[in-house]
Structure formats: structure tokens, C-alpha cells
């Protein structure tokens, strides 16, 4: 009998009742062998109930921790329950579950620790504002320089991680601006990552956590956080068992 790898799809959701149901449904459609964990980050709407009715496991945080804390809780679950691969997919529907297969393929074939879905490799027709593009390109250059590897989409939250990365994230996960900071963290722990071209769709509902006015402020803060990260002591990774 073939040993199946245990796969967990982590969906962080904060007040996403309009989209979370559809996201969970689609994941089960395209990835029937996986289990879906919705991390309800202290939502005040029906996110938790809708996710549960669609058959997802729901982890209810007692209050809003922010995306970093919510994702970490998801990874802690994945670690405790012995999953081999964890995939994170946003609850707002901007990540297409159809594309998860591509992440998994790269993760397994290249034997890397994390596969990052990128909107900017190849032309898969992702449209966003110029402002956002310029911001992401600046991040991309700064981060690529730090990790000595081309990272085109460091803010992408569409990722697949292996057991080793899950273990790291369960104990250490950046809280403030997790996506770009995780890239630095992986590099500092000598884990390997690779980008995979994926298509991302428009958000089903809700607003991006970054509005136009705040984007410059956000950029400065993230760059500062990245800069500080480079001086932090990297966490020790012992061998598991």
C-alpha cells in the first residue's frame, strides 16, 4: 500500500463569511485527500459556522491575534497532528485552490522546504494597482538581496511547507508582517524555498488589509522589520526525535 502523505490546508480567516465557504468547498474539490483547517481569528461574523458546515476543522481563537498569530496556531495544529505538508490559503478567496497542485508538485519534486506561489513569474494575468506593484517590487529587491535568491513575490501568502518548516513555524513565526519576514527566517535557518508561478484571482469579498493610503507606511514598517530580522538570533533547529 502506498503511504499517503498527510496534507493540511490552513485557511486563516477574519470576518470572511462571504468567501470562506466557497474557499473550503473548492479546496475539497481540487484536493480531496487533504484536510482543511480554518483558523477563525476572532471573527465577529459567521465565519466559524459556515466553515464548519462545509466540513472544515475550525480552530477558534478567543480574540483577534492578527495573521501571524493565526497562521502560527495553524502550524502548531499541523505539527501536533503529525501532518507532513501544510498549505496556507487565504480565506478571502484571492488564492485559487486549483493551483495548490502546482505548489505540491514543486515542493515534492525539488525536495525543498517551502514553495511560494508567485503572481509575478510568467504572465498569468494578475492585475493590481501600480502603487502596489512598485511596493512589492521594492520588497522583492531588498529581500532577494538579503536571501541571495530571486524572490519575486515576498508578500504572497499562498505557500506549501514540509514537515521541517512546519516544525519551525510552530515554535517561531513572525507576528507583524509574516509573509516577507518568513522568507528571511527560512533563509536564516538554512531551509530552502522556491517560487512557483500561480494565478491569483480577485478577492471574493472583503477589503485588502492594506489600503492605498497606508501602503507607504506599511512599506516602511516592513522594510524596518526585515532589517531588524537580519540581526535577530536565528532559532535553533534540532533534529526531530
Amino acid at each position, binding site marked *: 500500500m502506498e503511504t499517503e502523505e498527510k496534507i493540511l490546508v490552513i485557511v486563516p480567516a477574519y470576518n470572511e463569511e462571504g468567501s470562506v465557504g466557497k474557499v473550503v468547498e473548492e479546496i475539497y474539490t481540487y484536493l480531496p485527500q487533504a484536510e482543511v483547517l480554518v483558523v477563525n481569528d476572532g471573527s465577529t461574523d459567521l465565519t466559524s459556522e459556515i466553515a464548519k458546515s462545509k466540513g472544515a*476543522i*475550525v*480552530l*477558534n*481563537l*478567543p*480574540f483577534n*491575534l492578527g495573521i501571524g*498569530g493565526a497562521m*502560527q*496556531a495553524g502550524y*502548531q*495544529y499541523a505539527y*501536533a497532528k503529525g501532518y507532513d505538508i501544510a498549505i496556507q490559503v487565504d480565506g478571502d478567496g484571492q488564492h485559487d485552490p486549483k493551483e495548490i497542485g502546482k505548489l505540491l508538485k514543486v515542493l515534492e519534486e525539488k525536495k525543498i522546504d517551502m514553495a511560494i506561489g508567485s503572481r509575478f513569474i510568467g504572465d498569468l494575468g494578475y492585475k493590481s494597482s501600480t502603487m502596489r506593484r512598485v511596493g512589492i517590487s521594492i520588497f522583492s529587491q531588498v529581500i532577494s538581496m538579503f536571501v541571495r535568491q530571486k524572490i519575486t513575490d515576498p508578500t504572497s501568502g499562498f505557500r506549501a511547507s514540509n514537515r521541517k518548516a512546519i516544525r519551525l513555524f510552530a515554535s517561531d513565526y513572525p*507576528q507583524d508582517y509574516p509573509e516577507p519576514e518568513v522568507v528571511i527566517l527560512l533563509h536564516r535557518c538554512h531551509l530552502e524555498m522556491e517560487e512557483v508561478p500561480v494565478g491569483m484571482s480577485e478577492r471574493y469579498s472583503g477589503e485588502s488589509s492594506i489600503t492605498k493610503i497606508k501602503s507607504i507606511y506599511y512599506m516602511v514598517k516592513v522594510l524596518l522589520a526585515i532589517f531588524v530580522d537580519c540581526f535577530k538570533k536565528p532559532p535553533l533547529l534540532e533534529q526531530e526525535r
Partner: protein
Amino acid sequence: MLIKIKIIVGALSIILFLITFELIRKKRLREEYAILWLFTGVVVLVFSLWPEYLLSQFFVRITGIFYLSAVVLIAFFFLLLIVFHFSVVISKLTGQNKDLAQRYALLELEFETLKKRYVSHEMGSP
């Protein structure tokens, strides 16, 4: 003029000292957080009552500022230390709070799962 300021500043620092002491006694303030406050009270008191002694003279000589400004500056410096100390404490508490919330959520999920399994087991057995 100077004597008035001495009395006001001295009285304020004594009040600060007494309040801190009372709060520790009633266990409403933990000792580790109170040490800086007590120290602030004592230093400001010494400075305001005997400005001609010790550090204050030294301080006036090296900075070239006068009595009142020196007292204010020292008090300000201590407040800065206290605020900084608070930032450190708040950061630590925020981290612990996050850890607790995560562990609580994981345990709750585990508990619900076990409960469901237990209930279905109960119903299944004759």
C-alpha cells in the same frame, strides 16, 4: 523662590514614594515594577532638598543647567527609564498572551473532538 520649589518638589517626591510603598504593601504593584518608581522618588527627593550636595553639584557643573532644570531633567530621565521598562514588559506580556490564546484554541478543538467521539461511542454501545 527657591525654597518654594524645594517644598513643592520635595512634597511631590515624598507623596510618590509613599503611594508606591502603599501599593506594594497592598500587593497591587509588583516589587519588580516598583523598584524604578521608588528609586525615582528617592533621587528626586535628595536632589530637591539638598541641591548643593553630591550629584546635583556635579550635574550642574557638567551640564551648566540650574537647579530646577536639573531636577526636571533628572525626573524626566527616570520617567523615560520607567516607560522603557513598561515597553519591555508589555512586549513580553503580548507574547505570552498570544501563546495562551493559541494553546487555548488548540485545546478547545481537541476537547470538542474528543467529546464528539465520546458521545458517539456512548450512543453506539448498547
